[in-house]
């Protein structure tokens, strides 16, 4: 597979997943803001933006949240930007992705709203984003050949999911108290699954266990880490020549898995914010390793003009 195409596939996976997760995150927070009676609206909004690494908005309101994370094409973290980037990459990889999948991404991009909307319209929009992403997932699972392209896309998707779940988990730690857990679980689409598995006891310990280390839940951090390592392994097997490059990435994922799996849950909970930052660090680091080993572009050509030597 062409390196350039592999890179596009990786980022299609990441951006579509990011759009979906951002939509969930936003939806959860909009609901929390309404239920929140303490009146610290600005703080809650600032915290959410901080989670998404946005720090340039002063005294944010829910409208700012919707703009920065939702529809503003000039904000790099917005759902709009994510889908625009996914579409741009899909266009570059147009000949390797199935027609249905391309049409799904392209249609989504065409229908993206750029005009401001209020909180009422927000839920319609966010539901739509989640539906489109679900459609993307379904079409890709149903039509794509399991070749390197698929593995790179899954890898991107898994890493993004790890990153976003860790942010979502960290968001609960901000407000303290188990009061927030139901909303966080809903934000991951794991509320019912959690109730069925743990019989409705919202203790910090159990929710954290479910979201961080329960590999059976497809949005848990552990599930994402395992999926990303699997994809890396397959890519390494298919490309023996460059297989040694993948080892560094596989190792850092494995170390993180071991750390989360065998750590004392109480310790994790006590330092939830720091632990989740570490997860995001690993995701970023693996992305860099994968990029340098598989997506490496040409060395820039240097021309020596006559007379300079």
């Amino acid at each position: 597979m062409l390196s350039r195409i592999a890179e596009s596939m990786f980022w299609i996976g990441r951006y579509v997943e990011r759009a979906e997760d951002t939509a969930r995150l936003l939806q959860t927070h909009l609901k929390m803001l309404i239920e929140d009676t303490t009146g610290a609206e600005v703080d809650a909004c600032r915290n959410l933006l901080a989670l998404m690494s946005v720090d340039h908005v002063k005294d944010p309101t829910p409208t700012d949240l919707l703009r920065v994370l939702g529809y503003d094409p000039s904000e790099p973290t917005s759902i709009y930007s994510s889908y625009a980037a996914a579409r741009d990459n899909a266009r570059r990889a147009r000949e390797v992705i199935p027609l249905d999948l391309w049409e799904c991404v392209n249609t989504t991009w065409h229908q993206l709203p750029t005009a401001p909307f209020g909180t009422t319209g927000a839920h319609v929009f966010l539901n739509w984003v989640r539906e489109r992403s679900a459609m993307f997932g379904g079409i890709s699972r149903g039509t794509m050949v399991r070749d390197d392209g698929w593995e790179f896309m899954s890898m991107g998707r898994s890493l993004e999911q790890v990153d976003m779940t860790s942010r979502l988990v960290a968001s609960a730690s901000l407000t303290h108290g188990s009061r927030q857990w139901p909303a966080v679980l809903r934000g991951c689409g794991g509320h019912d699954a959690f109730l069925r598995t743990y019989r409705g006891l919202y203790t910090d310990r159990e929710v954290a266990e479910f979201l961080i280390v329960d590999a059976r839940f497809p949005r848990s951090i552990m599930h994402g880490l395992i999926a990303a390592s699997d994809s890396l392994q397959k890519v390494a097997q298919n490309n023996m020549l460059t297989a040694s490059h993948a080892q560094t990435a596989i190792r850092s994922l494995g170390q993180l898995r071991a750390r989360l799996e065998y750590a004392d849950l109480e310790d994790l909970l006590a330092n939830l914010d720091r632990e989740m930052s570490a997860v995001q660090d690993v995701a970023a680091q693996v992305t860099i390793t994968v990029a340098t080993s598989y997506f490496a572009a040409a060395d820039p050509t240097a021309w020596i003009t006559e007379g300079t030597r």
Partner: protein
Amino acid sequence: MADVLSNYRTGEAFDEMMDAEGSVRPSYKAVASALSRSTSDGLRVIAESLANNYTQAGVTFDVGGVERPFPLDLVPRVIASPEWEIIEAGVAQRVRALEAFLADIYADARVISDGVIPSQLVTSSTHFLRAVWGVKPANGVRIHVAGVDLIRNPAGDVRVLEDNVRVPSGVSYVMTNRNAMITAMPEAFAKQRIRPVAGYPTRLFAALRKAAPPGVDDPTVVVLTPGVYNSAYFEHTLLARTMGVELVEGRDLECRRGKVFMRTTAGLQRVDVIYRRIEDDFLDPVHFRSDSMLGVPGLVNAVRTGGVALANAIGNGVADDKLIYTYVPDLIKYYLREDPIIANVDTWRLEEDEAREEVLDRLEELVVKPVDGSGGKGIVIGPRATKAELDALRLQVTDDPRGWIAQPVVQLSTVPTLIEDCLQPRHVDLRPFAVNNGEGVWVLPGGLTRVALPEGELVVNSSQGGGSKDTWVLSPPPHRSSSGRNSTEHRDEGVDHEQSPTAVPLTVAKIPVGVMPKFAETHRQQQDQQQQGRRRGWRC
């Protein structure tokens, strides 16, 4: 009664659907009857669905950096079978002659020593590239793909307007137009047999594989695109996708020791055949434009040493120069010893003194074109130019007579086209595509019919905001098809799907389709009673 055709009036040009008396030509019977049954609202719905379809599928053409859906008109252009046979033979003949011309001109140039064309004609052409002099392609083919632009004059004769043997584009729209039309107007298809166009990628792929350097059994073919911002990027992706090959950009390729490699996740992989969609100038910064970011340094050397095959070959531009065009009938006689099947449009060569004087006198009634322009750029249409434009043109022509040709204003034929709410005649041309695999020239039955949407406009080019139409070549009547349609068409085994094999009735499968077992009937009845019992309970 809102008959959309009742107000259709043809102009002085030849109309493809109506003859001068206003009756429908035989080839258009089915289309006209489908149209006459529809209302203008119905047509608008179809037109909108065609446009939406294209936007969603990303069938777009970049005009000045903006991605636009390629406008597709819903009235097809229909070509009857006998006429198509002439076009097919004529196009193939031109390609064969130009192929022979290129082989000659990049070797001994006998055509010059035999006095058929003057030597300065070739040496003064900017597209005559000395870097590839003496290079012989492995299977002798330089024009793997050609697009020959045809028009029909008011007398009803088909003429050649220009040849494109460098990187002719537009074939993807032939395929997407057909797909869109089948969904939008299925009833018009049902009435007649229209020859399919979907076989093009297979033919092209086969021809590209045959072009591979000697000794390569299973060649790796790639399509080389300038990138996503190129106006024809959609076409490049479609061709790569339908041929199942990689679409590469210049930066994905690397030349090493006369061979070309692409950068993959598994390291460098050898490339044998490149179907390039980049102009010569940008292909190799070592030999041509050194500021090109799109090309691959060292590519020309790889071609010269036979390490890679390029389709179409470098330096083909010398054959589709508009001045060479005027000599093509002579070239056909010289190389093939045949008479041209399709004639040229009358053309004045402005470097000849007499012709130039005559043209400069009549500038306001002629069309003047730059010889190496493409995409309708630089064309001056005399009757519509201002005095200042004509004066400027006169100066340019006197300065550089080699750079210009002149032609009479030809009223291109018209086809009904949906403009707002009604059908109006609009001028069209036709670009059939030919693929040369070294053993024969195959012409795609169909082609890109481009239509100029403004009223009276004669320049039909996609980069000038033109639209397109689906082109239907009707199948010959069944009793003729078995005897072979045309001598110029070669048949690859397993490529031609036009003749469906005799259908064998399917035997009914022995194992029935699995279904989920039903609840036992008694169980269901019990549930039912339970419910009834409960309901009764509530009532009490």
